[in-house]
């Protein structure tokens, strides 16, 4: 029987139908500050601190195996960065070689969009925040890319399902842009999210550098507003219903690489939600 009341939520948790995650994220790294050429917006991530070797082995925050039902996110506390932090899923779209020009996206085998049931409609595409994460530091020249092919074909599918040729460039903010730097990718005017990124053209290459392209789905958020890090509480139930499913969305076909992470948006330095205490309840 689905949960319909606060008492039902409390009783389900007491019965063991839920999750309490006590999570410790990876240590912050000093990334390269965003600027106008890459859209101004840094975004940082924290993976599980145990099991992660940045940026080759990324350990998602663990959930119990094969959760049988929806697990509604209820409540979190974060110890994260200025400007907003929270919990989210990174869906791996592909990797980009920044040392050569031309079409450089190697798309993940899974077929996007990722889908969820939304507003009682099954398998609805999820709009994702497009993110580039530098996984190998760049060198000599700041790489530049855009979401299209060399021949001018479309580079992404927008929030409404339209295939779009990206004209805006993403110029990495320094010749030596540090590994771990994350930026929200610039989209065409009028677009707010992507269902997929299909092509990336590197127009200026460095002598070193590699990146991973992700789509970020926000599960929860807390608007931290102090420079120093303070514990912040996101109470999904009491600040307006905000109960997303803690299980990842699924790929249209194939198996998407989905990493449950802490995230933090900032305009100056990198950050992530370093520690997260997260509670969810099974919808049974």
């Amino acid at each position, binding site marked *: 029987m689905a949960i319909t009341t606060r008492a039902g939520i409390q009783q389900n948790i007491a019965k063991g139908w839920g999750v309490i995650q006590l*999570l410790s994220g990876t240590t912050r790294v000093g990334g390269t500050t965003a600027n106008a050429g890459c859209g101004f917006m840094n975004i940082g991530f924290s993976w599980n*601190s145990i099991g992660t070797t940045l940026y080759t082995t990324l*350990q998602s925050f663990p959930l119990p195996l094969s959760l049988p039902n929806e697990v509604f996110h209820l409540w979190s506390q974060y110890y994260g960065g200025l400007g907003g932090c929270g919990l989210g899923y990174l869906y791996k779209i592909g990797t980009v070689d920044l040392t050569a020009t031309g079409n450089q996206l190697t798309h993940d085998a899974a077929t996007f969009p990722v889908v969820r049931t939304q507003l009682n409609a099954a398998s609805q595409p999820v709009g994702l925040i497009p993110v580039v994460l530098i996984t190998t530091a760049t060198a000599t020249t700041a790489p530049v890319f855009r979401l299209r092919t060399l021949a001018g074909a479309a580079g992404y599918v927008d929030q409404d399902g339209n295939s779009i040729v990206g004209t805006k460039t993403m110029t990495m903010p320094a010749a030596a842009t540090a590994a771990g730097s994350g930026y929200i990718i610039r989209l065409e005017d009028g677009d707010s999210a992507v269902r997929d990124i299909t092509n990336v053209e590197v127009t200026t290459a460095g002598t070193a550098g590699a990146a991973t392209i992700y789509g970020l789905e926000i599960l929860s958020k807390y608007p931290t507003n102090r420079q120093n890090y303070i514990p912040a509480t996101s109470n999904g139930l009491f600040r307006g219903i905000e109960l997303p499913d803690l299980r990842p969305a699924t790929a249209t076909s194939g198996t998407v690489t989905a990493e449950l992470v802490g995230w933090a948006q900032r305009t100056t330095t990198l950050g992530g939600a370093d520690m997260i205490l997260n509670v969810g309840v099974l919808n049974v």
Partner: protein
Amino acid sequence: MGTALNALDNMVSQNQAKGPAIRSFMSYLSANTTAATTTSGYTSGQRFPDTITVQSVGAGVSGGYVTGCELWSSRTVCCVIALETTLGTLTVSGNSFAGGSAMPTKTVAGTSLTTATLIPVIVVTTALTATTPILTITYTDQDGNTGQTATMTLPTNPVINSAFLVAPHLAAGDTGVRAVTGLSISTGSAGTLRAFGLLPIVLGFVAANVAILMPSPLATSLPMFLCEANEVIAVYNFGTALTSQIRADLTFVAEN
């Protein structure tokens, strides 16, 4: 039952009519504990050796709810203050299991129910002499299914007060534990492990050297667990394996 938490006014009236109890807690770990791995909980944990035993109550009172908590820690951690049930004990020498108690029955939001812990932990109560031992936990799951198993590979020679989260290693589809019916270990010559089931009464972060007021339990969607006489309240840190100190002040309001 449930009157203290039915409304804020009830809590106030219970508080003035029957008197609150404030229990202060301080404990420290003077030695590092053993860090977890991806096969032993994913997040390092530690249990403070000192505990609180819930005091006896007067006539007409069944126990107390923790309605407030101030907390200070020397580390930035996820802190869990919880009613603790001993589910079972393993003596490594001889691979000998002694059964404990099942998770208690509690009244939550007006309904009596069989609890299952979402935070089952394995705690080292005597240092182990064992090289990457594989621990097998046999348990009854949240739905009452018996004979479920979880397997964890512990670090070599984990030291006393180290705590390892079991939840990520439960059988597929399981989220909670009602009881532990067996513990066995693949290798080792000394040490003791204890399986505990936690029902959290305070959950939250504390930043190093910053005293905080925990979020009011009245404004969360977490269950309130009645603390009854002689029950044990234990304090855990998660997110560190370093020496730690902690200070907490818990306020209990009487429940009829």
